[in-house]
């Protein structure tokens, strides 16, 4: 482990500019997360163009802080409005809202904040410890292994995405297909440009990202806007929990944090999966399960610790392998790409200073979350009341200016709106856009590593069978694809019928 890089990363973060950006990013994330209908991913996509003119350390620090802030911010409207601000706060509604109805909104928000802080800090420290260890392992990864990892990343993310597995895989495959638009780096052939010079350099990842995540969100907000004013519960009790209560909840918080880290490491799963998993485990370990769903504070602490712990967990495969663990980490990877830093195992070696800066930024963002949360949680209540239609128009305006800011080109704005319309269609079809975004990132990685592997193997596909690591990864990828087909279901039914027949014969 290169300790000098760890120290460089720490020094990069603890400058006045970066600390201010971390606090600002956390506050912005808090407000965005608190607004129902907005997500951390969307906010990251909108803020990404802002980081172009910043140095990598500052840009990444702000984005990481926004991610952390939004992960907690979702609990504010979950507890006060009975509407999760972000998908990962859905489980918090179950016990958070009943607590606010019982006049304990402050208690619920305070525990949510402290649980988020502990979970996030745990994941930041896990990231700091695990990433360099994984970095040693991935030095064994050559082009063959990188191709296999990219294939695995796409298939797992596609199969675990929301909606049916086949939808997720289609979304990922579409992303891979779209990633081939532009000049082929090997032969210089313009592919699928249809004579359009603006497409020669390919489709800008950020343009697609803003279009696929933000525009559909805005259109959905307009669709469900109905002019009815949102009524939030008032915060009448204190926010800061007692030490005794925190101590009682700590085993639950620590367990949920571990769940969040592990779930975050698995590509394709995110805060929503982790929060429900942690909630179920908290209920399982509770002495009095009957209180869950009626205002048990453990039912607030568990999902909030888990959904913040996902942040660091999802960054582990992102940093170690260059495979985004979630759509939000895909954007953080995009932020690195925008700064000219290509994703891959070399993030920890060639760009170690920037990578460790990101890791330290996550840790400091969680500390910032505690301070910012204590000061501004009550102020977020007013933000939750902004009408949906106004939020939608603001998002569209930000999308247009944000996509223009990339290359100062109206073509990018048009492309962004096109992706936005497609993303809205995907949402109507129940298909997640996250695998498509990840396909856009992994497409060039897959293509480059494929061509390099073919060169190594003398244009023989057998090169992928020469590496045990690649064989294992490709087998797992094949299995996850087969799960999407009816074949698996038929095999399971046949086995069940056979075992039922055998049981029946034994009884006779």
């Amino acid at each position, binding site marked *: 482990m290169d300790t000098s890089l760890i120290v460089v990363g720490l020094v990069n973060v603890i400058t006045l500019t970066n600390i201010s950006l971390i606090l600002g990013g956390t506050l912005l994330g808090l407000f965005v997360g608190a607004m129902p209908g907005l997500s951390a991913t969307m906010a990251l996509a909108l803020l990404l163009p802002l980081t172009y003119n910043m140095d990598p350390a500052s840009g990444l620090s702000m984005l990481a802080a926004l991610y952390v802030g939004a992960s907690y911010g979702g609990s504010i409207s979950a507890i006060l409005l009975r509407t999760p601000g972000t998908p990962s706060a859905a489980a918090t509604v179950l016990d958070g809202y009943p607590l606010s109805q019982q006049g304990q909104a402050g208690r619920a928000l305070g525990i949510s904040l402290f649980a988020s802080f502990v979970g996030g800090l745990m994941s930041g420290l896990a990231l700091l410890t695990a990433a360099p260890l994984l970095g040693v392992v991935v030095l064994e990864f050559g082009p063959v292994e990188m191709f296999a990892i990219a294939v695995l990343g796409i298939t797992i993310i596609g199969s675990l995405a929301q909606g049916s597995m086949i939808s997720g895989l289609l979304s990922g495959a*579409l992303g891979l297909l779209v990633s*081939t638009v532009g000049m082929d780096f090997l032969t210089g052939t313009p592919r699928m440009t249809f004579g359009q010079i603006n497409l020669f350099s390919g489709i800008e990842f950020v343009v697609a990202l803003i279009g696929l995540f933000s525009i559909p969100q805005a259109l959905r907000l307009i669709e469900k806007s109905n002019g009815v004013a949102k009524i939030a519960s008032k915060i009448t009790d204190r926010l800061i929990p007692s030490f005794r209560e925190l101590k009682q909840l700590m085993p639950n918080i620590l367990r949920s944090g571990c769940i969040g880290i592990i779930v975050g490491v698995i590509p394709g799963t995110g805060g929503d999966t982790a929060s429900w998993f942690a909630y179920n485990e908290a209920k399982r370990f509770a002495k009095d399960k009957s209180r869950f769903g009626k205002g048990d504070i453990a039912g607030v602490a568990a999902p909030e610790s888990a959904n913040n712990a996902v942040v660091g967990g999802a960054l582990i495969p992102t940093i170690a392998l260059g495979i985004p663990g979630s759509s939000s980490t895909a954007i953080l990877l995009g932020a690195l790409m925008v700064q000219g830093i290509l994703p891959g195992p070399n993030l920890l070696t060639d760009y170690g200073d920037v990578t460790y800066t990101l890791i330290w930024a996550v840790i400091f963002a969680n500390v910032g979350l505690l301070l910012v949360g204590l000061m501004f949680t009550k102020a977020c209540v007013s933000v939750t009341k902004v009408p949906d239609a106004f939020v*939608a*128009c*603001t998002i569209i*305006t930000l999308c247009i200016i944000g996509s223009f800011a990339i290359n100062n080109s109206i073509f990018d704005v048009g492309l962004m709106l096109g992706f936005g319309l497609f993303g809205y269609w995907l949402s109507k079809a*129940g298909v997640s856009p996250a695998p498509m975004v990840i396909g856009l990132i992994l497409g060039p990685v897959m293509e480059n590593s494929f061509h390099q592997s073919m060169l190594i193997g003398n244009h023989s596909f057998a090169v992928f069978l020469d590496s045990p690591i690649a064989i294992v990864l490709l087998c797992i990828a094949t299995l996850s694809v087969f799960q999407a087909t009816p074949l698996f279901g038929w095999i399971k039914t046949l086995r069940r019928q056979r075992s039922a027949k055998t049981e029946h014969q034994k009884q006779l």
Partner: protein
Amino acid sequence: MNTSRLVLGIFGVGIAVVFYIDSTGYPDQAAQMPLIYSTAVVLLSLGIVAQELLSLRRHRTVAVESRDAHSNDDANGDKSEAPGRLLAVFITFVLAIIYSALINYAGYLLSTVAFMLAALLVTRTVSVAFSLVGIAAVVAVICIVFIAFLGLPIPLLPTFF
């Protein structure tokens, strides 16, 4: 049955076929990955079409058996929304296209204010007072962040001035 999914499947086949045909004209190395990806998209799109057609068949069988008069759309995304709200969505999107086309001619300030006012009038769920104050705040923040701070070369005022 989710009509959007069915049409998406057909669209996927179409786009993959276009990419496939276009790729056959490239040198071998340039064509390799687009051909592989197009094939994958075709297979998965056909899978989605098959899934939707099977679910339609299953629905019809269940409806006949239980004499169910209701036909619910599939839960996955295609919830039938009031036509009025879908029209508002469509108009807002068209307004967004017009807004982006107008920026270079009418200037950023005028086109942004016009777009937001028009879109909020279409949705009719926000009061005029809130709209005006909110629009002023949003435009001010964007001008400070993107134009003053980032130095974005976007015309603020109409170019015919």
